[in-house]
């Protein structure tokens, strides 16, 4: 049993060291760590640093100004302020730590158990937590003080209990998020005990949030404790920053610096803890930060607007002899600027065209750039994407003119929805669950076609019948969660043809559907395409879908176009080795139980 423990420790170190490097590189993180180390050093070395006992009173020297023996002067009964500050650090920090420890000891294990097992323990624990959270904290602390006396330790233990629900909820939520992950299932199959599963697979998930929460909780504990003591509810015989603050406040007119030093110490400690919490969080989420920085400066609004208007007039002419193509993409390149100034190209030198009434398939594996190409025609690339080369023309006009570095929204938005429509991959996530299907069909039609609601409604009914929905009225009134995935895709297809487009871009329209439903949806798309004479750009990874629908095919690999041609030619006699490899990977027509990849061909 020693082996897994050792291994998991090693893994932990690797991850933690990386996080620590990131914290240290963050100026806020390094500042926070410096402040807190200083405070902790002060607390640990209190005996060495302080020249006097914190309660040693020199009645002959009260409210003295700083001098050689009393570095920061003395207070109203002649105690050395520096010594009290140093010993106060020890008491204050230790009591904050005690508070956090109590909260963690109660909250973490109960949260782990409640989150992992659920059931009755979870229900009971939630009740207890709700009661604890509804208690007014300050009143409880005052009651505890009245019952047990003014001990800072007892009040911090009580406060720890009051804060434990925070840890419980945090742990429970994190655990619930991972307890059904497949790697936890795999560990169960491997026969790991629940204890080992929690220790090895679950605890790593809650470790980071617990550290962040603890930094915050320590800060809160210092603030509350100092607050209570400032009000005079602390133990006057123990030197803490709060007691010093209270003492300084009484003498604020005689010596204001008495207030300054404990206030500074409290402020720095709490600030340091909060910053540390933030730095740890940032270090864990560094991916997000780079993205934010990557958002390149938008072109200055002032100069750009007239230029683009001039552009629009200028770009009206495309190369002679290409006007008749519905879509023509020439030498298109799409890239994403990186933090270091370079550009990561995802589409490189892609050219093809699509004529009216034609179905063109773009085939490729994940990461081949096929969707990025389709989205540049739609003008729906992410904000940070750049057109790094080439141009796109639609029906004789440029949507991306040579030299443009973004898709002109002015030009595309007047086409999108009217002349170019879109069928997405995930039907369910493309319907808004808050609105009825009817509403989601009618509203765009009223907007785009400028027709009345009654007219749009009757058109929507007809469209739903057209896409093979048996009871259009019922579907019209239904919410998306009330219909199946195949039905939802039919609704989206109805939406796509509702404004009589010239071009439909379908991005893996059947990938999320069951095979039998896929066949029905393919039939529907084929029928509609024939009936409406619309051009279809079909993005897919499935050669079966290609052979079912397409007239011509474009094969893409790693952002490049490797082969283009009529569907029969590409599928029967592919000339490019990559296309051959793709088709060779198909299972159809293979002798079962034989190897698919010839020796030496493995990637």
């Amino acid at each position, binding site marked *: *049993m*020693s*082996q*897994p423990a*050792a*291994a*998991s420790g*090693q*893994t*932990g170190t*690797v*991850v933690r060291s990386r996080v620590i490097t990131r914290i240290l590189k963050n100026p806020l993180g390094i500042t926070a760590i410096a402040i807190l180390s200083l405070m902790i050093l002060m607390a640990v070395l209190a005996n060495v640093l302080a020249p006097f006992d914190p309660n040693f009173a020199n009645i002959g020297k009260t409210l003295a100004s700083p001098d050689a023996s009393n570095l920061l002067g003395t207070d109203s009964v002649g105690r050395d302020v520096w010594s009290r500050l140093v010993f106060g650090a020890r008491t204050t920090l230790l009591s904050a730590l005690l508070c956090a420890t109590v909260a963690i000891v109660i909250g973490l294990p109960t949260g782990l158990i409640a989150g992992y097992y659920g059931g009755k323990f979870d229900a009971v624990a939630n009740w207890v937590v709700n009661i604890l959270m509804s208690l007014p904290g300050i009143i409880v602390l005052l009651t505890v003080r009245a019952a047990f006396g003014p001990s800072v330790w007892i009040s911090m233990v009580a406060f720890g209990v009051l804060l434990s629900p925070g840890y419980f909820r945090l742990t429970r939520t994190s655990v619930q998020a991972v307890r059904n992950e*497949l*790697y936890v*299932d*795999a*560990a*169960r*199959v*491997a*026969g*790991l*005990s*629940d204890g*080992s599963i929690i220790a*090895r*697979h679950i605890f*790593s998930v809650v470790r980071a949030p617990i550290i962040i929460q603890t930094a915050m909780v320590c800060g809160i504990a210092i603030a509350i404790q100092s607050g209570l003591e400032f009000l005079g509810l602390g133990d006057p015989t123990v030197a803490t920053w709060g007691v010093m603050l209270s003492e300084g406040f009484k003498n604020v007119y005689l010596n204001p610096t008495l207030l300054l030093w404990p206030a500074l110490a409290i402020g720095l400690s709490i600030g340091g803890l909060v910053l540390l919490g933030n730095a740890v969080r940032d270090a864990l989420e560094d991916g997000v930060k780079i993205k934010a920085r990557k958002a390149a400066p938008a072109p200055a609004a002032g100069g750009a607007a007239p230029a683009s208007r001039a552009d629009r007039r200028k770009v009206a002419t495309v190369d002679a002899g290409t006007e008749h193509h519905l879509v023509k993409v020439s030498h298109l390149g799409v890239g994403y600027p990186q933090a270091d100034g370079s550009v990561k190209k995802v589409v490189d030198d892609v050219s093809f065209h699509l004529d009216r009434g034609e179905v063109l398939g773009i085939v490729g*594996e*994940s990461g081949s750039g096929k969707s990025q190409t389709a989205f540049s025609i739609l003008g729906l690339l992410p904000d940070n994407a750049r057109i790094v080369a080439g141009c796109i023309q639609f029906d004789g006009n440029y949507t991306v003119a040579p030299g443009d570095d973004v898709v002109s929204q002015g030009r595309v938005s007047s086409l999108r929805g009217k002349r170019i429509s879109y069928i997405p991959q995930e039907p369910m996530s493309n319907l808004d669950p808050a609105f009825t299907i009817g509403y989601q069909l009618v509203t765009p039609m009223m907007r785009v076609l400028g027709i009345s609601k009654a007219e749009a409604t009757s058109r929507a009914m007809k469209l739903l019948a057209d896409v093979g929905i048996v009871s259009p009225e019922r579907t019209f009134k239904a919410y998306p969660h009330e219909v199946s995935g195949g039905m939802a895709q039919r609704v989206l297809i109805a939406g796509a043809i509702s404004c009589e487009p010239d071009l439909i871009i379908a991005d893996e329209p059947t990938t999320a559907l*069951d*095979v*039998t439903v*896929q*066949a029905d949806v*393919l039939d529907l798309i084929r029928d509609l395409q024939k009936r409406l004479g619309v051009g279809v750009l079909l993005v897919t*990874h*499935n050669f*079966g*879908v*290609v*052979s*079912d629908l397409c007239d011509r095919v474009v094969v893409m690999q790693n952002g490049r176009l490797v082969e283009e041609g009529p569907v*029969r030619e590409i599928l029967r006699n592919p000339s490019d080795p990559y296309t051959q*490899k*793709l*088709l*060779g*990977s*198909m*299972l*159809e*027509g*293979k002798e*079962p*139980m034989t*190897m*698919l*990849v010839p020796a030496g061909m493995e*990637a």
Partner: protein
Amino acid sequence: MAQATAPRHAQSAGENLLTVDSLVVEYPTKHFRAKPFRALTDINISIKPGETLGLVGESGSGKTTLGRAVLGLAPVTAGTVTFEGNDISHATRKQRRELSRDLQVVFQDPYTSLNPSMEIGSILAEPLGVQGQSPAQARARVKELLDQVGLPSDAINRLPREFSGGQRQRVAIARALALSPKLIVCDEPVSALDLTTQAVVLDLFLQIQRDTGVSYLFVSHDLDVVRHISHRVAVMYHGEIVEQGPADQVTVAPEHPYTQRLLLASPVPDPDRQEQRRADRHRLLELQRQTTEQAGVAV
């Protein structure tokens, strides 16, 4: 390749490795005193040593639940699961630990089936450590496993995120192989992979079976995948097995109307043959519609 002609022999081997008899799986629903949700009804399957049983069906048909019930991850409401003669329907965690030597799993999603914060070496050593192997033994075995699934040996100290989907699935396969099991439940192991990667991983599954004689319960929604890798095939529909038999029979000339629909729904990569298949499918659907209508009239 002399091996290439090997299998499809498994039927001859005697004893069943796994027998599932009249299995029912029900999940309790949230509502108080509501009827539980029945995910599986009266399931009967068996797998012999060295044999692959393909389990095919659409989403929600219960094929994944059946795999999970065999692994002890789904509640067995009625019926029995027997492995090597022992009833494991309600095995305790301790019995599962014994069982994990012989019964393993490869899940669908190679992105969530590996703990993102653990190095490949520790992931692969985990099942070995549970069985009480020493770290040195485990390390040697991990090297062997990486070699077996075609991953570089420096993978030991790397994290899952440094690998592509296909490579991660190899790690998951290596973890399943760690204890040289007799049966591996494969739950859609190639569905999340690209076409070329799928081919490579399927080859790996076949090669491992040839080398080690392991049995697979191979769950997939793709009839072509199941046809390629299975000796026998069971078709699931709405929580029941509607058809079961030798792969070449069930996936080429099926008897049940649902399997027939499934077969003709899968498009083939040639426009003219696909047109033919499409016409066949429409004819079949029309025929089945008439049959149901007539049955309705008769009743």
